[in-house]
């Protein structure tokens, strides 16, 4: 087990190396002088020179990279030129809504997908199965920002059941917080729900035909108990993997969906920074989300290796 964990951790080093180089280079692929791009066309030569000094952009590129990474190691993501505060502070201020939305989407996805998946597997080949599978196919084809707009139009504007857009922090009460997250949560969670429904169905189908299911029924247990306690518990491991692997996708997706519903999360932070040419913030957000994404996948891999010994033995 120790060998497996250390191997998995070591394999992260080249990945993080390439990730940091790619993100570092973003500021250098701007056409022309980065400092001139940041300041805009009205800037004088002296101002550009001054900013170059300040950001260290006139030093050799490898020195810049090394000092940037050294800063990262200490948790220093640089300073936002526009907001006059450290990037880290800006990210801490904006990460809450993004995580709230991702968790909300995951909850909605699970609430829909697991019952649907179980029903589809239990009534395999029935009308219910066909329609659930059909809807899940459609659900995977509609991008989340589009579904968000449609929901906003139908539920927010036409029916007026829920607020169209906006955000209330959790400190203003749980319902106030939730009602702003339901529509974005559904838009973001639908693709996830479709995926988990299909996974649950496939996983349940494998278990349902096994002999111990017959035994459980022969013992006279009621169907509900057979399904949930005997079948579902055994079908759960592959479902858990999908949930874990795709949670990272939800965090990224949240960044896009936020901007539709005016939720002040990381997505809004990065989009506002584009117009302000605030590259430190853009780099910081991309880096933090990537690290979260990589960390979640690592956690799932380790968890899986822990639960299922075959995984850690296979990958010699």
């Amino acid at each position: 087990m120790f060998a497996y964990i250390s191997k998995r951790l070591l394999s992260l080093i080249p990945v993080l190396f390439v990730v940091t180089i790619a993100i570092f280079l973003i500021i250098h692929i701007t056409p022309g002088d980065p400092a001139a791009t940041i300041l805009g066309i009205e800037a004088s030569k002296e101002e550009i020179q001054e900013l170059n000094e300040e950001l260290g952009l006139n030093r050799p590129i490898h020195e810049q990279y090394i000092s940037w990474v050294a800063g990262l190691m200490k948790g220093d993501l640089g300073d936002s030129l526009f907001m006059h505060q450290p990037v880290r502070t800006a990210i801490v201020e904006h990460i809450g809504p993004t995580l709230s939305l991702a968790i909300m989407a995951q909850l909605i996805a699970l609430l829909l997908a697991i019952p649907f998946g179980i029903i589809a597997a239990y009534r395999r080949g029935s009308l219910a199965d066909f329609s659930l599978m059909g809807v899940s196919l459609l659900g995977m084809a509609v991008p989340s920002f589009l579904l968000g707009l449609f929901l906003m139009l139908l539920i927010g504007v036409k029916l007026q059941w829920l607020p169209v857009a906006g955000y209330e922090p959790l400190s203003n009460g749980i319902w106030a917080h939730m009602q702003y997250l339901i529509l974005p949560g559904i838009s973001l969670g639908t693709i996830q729900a479709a995926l988990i429904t299909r996974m649950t169905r496939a996983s349940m189908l494998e278990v349902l035909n096994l002999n111990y299911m017959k035994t459980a029924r022969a013992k006279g247990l009621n169907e509900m108990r057979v399904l949930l306690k005997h079948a579902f518990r055994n079908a759960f491991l592959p479902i858990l993997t999908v949930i874990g692997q795709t949670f990272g996708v939800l965090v990224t997706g949240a960044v896009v969906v936020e901007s539709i519903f005016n939720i002040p999360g990381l997505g809004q932070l990065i989009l506002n920074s584009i117009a302000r040419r605030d590259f430190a913030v853009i780099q910081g957000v991309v880096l933090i989300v990537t690290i979260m994404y990589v960390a979640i996948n690592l956690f799932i891999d380790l968890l899986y290796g822990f639960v299922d010994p075959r995984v850690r033995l296979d990958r010699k």
Partner: protein
Amino acid sequence: MITLQETENIAQLSEKLKKEQRALRFRRLKSNYGLLIGSIIILLFIAVALMGPLFTTYGPYQMKVLDRLLPPSAEHLLGTDEFGRDLLTRIIYGARVSISVGLIVALLSSLFGLIIGIYAAYYRTLDHILMRICDGLIAIPGILLAIALMAALGASAFNVIVALTIVFTPNIARIVRSIALVVREQTYIEAMHAQGASNTRIIWLHIVPNTLSPLLVQATFVFAEAIISEAALSFLGAGIPAPEASWGNILQASKLVIYKAWWMVVFPGAAIILSVLSLNLLGDGLRDFLDPRVKYKQKK
């Protein structure tokens, strides 16, 4: 000894076999609804993108202040937008941008992915370097990488193509590499080496053709993904800049007038969903058609 009669028989037989194979292939094509429906719809989209402007009586930038935000009517089939431009015309011109960006991204990332994947599979030292770079790029969530690249490069159709090609190439390279790794171990490749064929010859004449059909399937899915990503980028204001029309930036404008103009959300949205759905159908259909074993396995 083989007599003349027998050689003729053999020739006839092989001719007959070829005919049967063709018939079989045609039957498979006919019963493959996904492939048929998907390709018909996507061809329609391409036709509209190419010839659409011939059928519209309005210009894409033709504004009429009095006609702002009109609902669908006989005069404006899909209504008008916030500047009084005809929405149908905008969607048709948007199809040009969205479909061509999607197609070019699919072609370019397939080409680069093919080259990177093949050379990584063939030269093992190169493999380590190239695949670590791909792993790193894959680790950065695609849409975020695209947003960051667009922030650095500036909003334009050309830069959307550059950014999305960078995002999609590593995935294709990985897929091509995994197929090429299997192909290069085959006996006939060993035989080519023994005959003294050059590496370039083996790579381009013997390994590449074997990776093409999975690559084609993958390219179809990238086409669909690229349409979605372009729309998302333009919707977020980091893609195709106004006043040029793309499905994404029509949607971006629609958000501001969502209380007044449902048609500006529904119609471009429907265009995106329909094109993506048909490309997904086409991709699944192609996979079944090019590799019948997969379908057989699924049925069992």
